[in-house]
């Protein structure tokens, strides 16, 4: 038994390195997409101290809006790339409207409430968006308009280590998009006026208000940014599978990524995403069959919890100093 757990999987890895590389690549792509969802969480947490549980449903909602609007255009006989990008614009407008609505209705009355109250409010938001989405777009899964958006498709086969590793073009595109977006966001937070204001708000609502930062504006900006991230995530996830409410469960997967990386760190979201994505795929592929498959549903949490026992604030999180 010990041999099967401790030695056999590594022997298998060494015996078939191409399969190992393939597993790592798949984990890498999954990790990038987890990181994207986690990024939406981090943005909002960093800039307003709200733990936004609704980020996952925002991804679904943005994807559904995009496909729904495109279907509407298609019913008038207006299809193709222009229609697709017009739908993107409409979806962005919807996410902006959502950001304004959230700020007006939910956040403004709850300024300076304890964190837990704001967290629970995003729970309410989640259910509201699930109900609205199902009412407007129906509960059935939809196909993402990947071709019309001009996303690459096809497979590249590489000869590595005496075997064949196949990479989906779509996955490569997802990785590139994620990298560009993360870099842009990091620069935005570090070097622009608004980015500095966002960080100030995260530190203390009261202090930011007293130096003349408009809390309402900042909140709209940050929720809209999270909406944009959600839309991009929705497109990428939707192109890999379907756009459906089942995607919510993926958002729950982004939570271990967050606690692993730390709630306040953009690099943490990425590193955490990659660790969880790759670790989960390797665990499922090599150790999963030993205890019955399907361990992907909780393996990520076990990885995250193990890290937490040693660093309770996550890998890149801020160390909390508590005073009485």
């Amino acid at each position, binding site marked *: 038994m010990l041999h099967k757990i401790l030695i056999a999987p590594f022997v298998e890895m060494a015996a078939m390195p191409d399969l190992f590389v393939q597993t790592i690549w798949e984990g890498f792509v999954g990790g990038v997409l987890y990181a994207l969802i986690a990024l939406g969480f981090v943005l909002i947490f960093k800039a307003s101290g709200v*733990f936004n549980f609704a980020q996952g449903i925002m991804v679904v909602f943005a994807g559904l809006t995009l496909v729904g609007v495109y279907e509407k255009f298609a019913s008038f006989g207006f299809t193709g790339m222009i229609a697709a990008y017009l739908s993107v614009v409409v979806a962005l407008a919807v996410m902006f409207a959502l950001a304004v609505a959230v700020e007006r209705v939910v956040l403004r009355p709850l300024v300076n409430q304890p964190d837990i109250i704001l*967290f629970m409010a995003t729970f*309410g*938001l989640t259910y*509201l968006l699930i109900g609205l989405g199902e009412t407007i777009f129906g509960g059935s899964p939809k196909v993402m308009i990947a071709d019309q958006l001009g996303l690459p498709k096809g497979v590249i086969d590489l000869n590595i280590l005496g075997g064949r590793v196949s990479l989906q073009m779509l996955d490569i595109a997802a990785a590139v998009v994620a990298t560009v977006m993360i870099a842009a966001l990091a620069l935005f937070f570090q070097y622009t006026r608004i980015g500095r204001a966002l960080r100030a708000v995260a530190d203390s609502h009261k202090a930011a208000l007293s130096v003349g930062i408009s809390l309402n504006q900042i909140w709209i900006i940050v929720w809209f940014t999270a909406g944009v991230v959600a839309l991009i995530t929705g497109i990428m996830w939707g192109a890999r599978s379907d756009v459906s409410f089942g995607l919510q469960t993926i958002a729950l997967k982004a939570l271990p990524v967050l606690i692993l990386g730390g709630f306040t760190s953009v690099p943490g979201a990425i590193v955490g995403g990659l660790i969880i994505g790759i670790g989960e795929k390797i665990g499922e592929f090599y150790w999963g069959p030993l205890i019955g498959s*399907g361990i992907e549903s909780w393996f990520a949490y*076990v990885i995250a919890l193990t890290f937490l026992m040693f660093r*309770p604030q996550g890998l890149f999180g801020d160390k909390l100093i508590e005073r*009485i």
Partner: protein
Amino acid sequence: MFYREVGQYKTTYQADMAVFPILQDRIGIAVILAIAFIAIPLFASEFIIMSVMVPFLVFALAAIGLNILTGYTGLISLGSGAFMGVGAYACYKLTTLFPGVNIIVWIIVSGFFSAAIGVVFGIPSLRIKGFYLAVATLAAQFFLQWCFVRIPWLYNYNVSGAIEVPERTLFGVAITGARATPEMRYLVLLTIVVALTWLASNLVHGRIGRSWMAVRDMDIAAELMGIKLLPTKLLAFAVSSFYCGVAGACMMFLWYGGGEANDAFNVNQSFNVLFMVIIGGLGSLLGSFLGSFFISTLPTLLKFGVPAIGIPLTGAFAEHLTHVMVGALIIFFLIVEPHGLARLWQIAKQKLRVWPFPY
């Protein structure tokens, strides 16, 4: 006026510390218990009992459990659904292994299994706090749910992959299984709920409850006052899981009758219980009852009540509407009354006390 406590002197410490110090409260509780134990089984229809009262009582028990952890001790948990599952599966294993022992004994004992599992998943709570802990309890949710599906021993290798509730009797009357009448199931459930609520009330009013609340309000200060954090938090996890486990066992044996076991303990159930606690009121036993009544009857009301008054509503749309309404109500309550329905009752009581004067 209606609530005037003038002339009700407290002359002993016992009277001062009583759970219901006011005569009107004691009368009210007695009336409610009489209605619940006598009037409802005699006069209510089967529909009222099985789709309103039984779900309400089951969820009330689970909500009390979560309220002890989240409302009284301040530890957020998103794993209550899984702990309910542990209770249900433990009860099933016990009653099939030892069919001779009364089922009510096993329903209570299965709570202890759930408590043990709860303690294991509560251990990280010393190191990690707040949102980090909430995510850690999600680990319990997903791991246990996986166990329910993947370990065939838990459901006795049934072909259906779910637990099948056998028939068990009390004094020769069937209380579980297909032949049990709704009235019997309701009475058994009500007895369990009343007994456990009494127990919980004593717990939270005593030394243990006060140490839980001290930890909730500020754990470092509580530690300085000499409260040992780890045992206190673990005890909260244990008691909370105990209640959830008993609720889960009751749910399977007295309400569902098996079948849907895999689906009944998923993460949505955990959220549901959390909503009951939020809407009912954090840190209030009364709130657990009010919240669970509210949330558990809302779908029934939308599905059967709204068409009854002439507005046609399809089943799917009613479900979506439930989501929208629950979501909107949570936000509404958090903004308007963060202390939930229980606080509204307190306000009403105060108004009755000073009536007819405003102050």
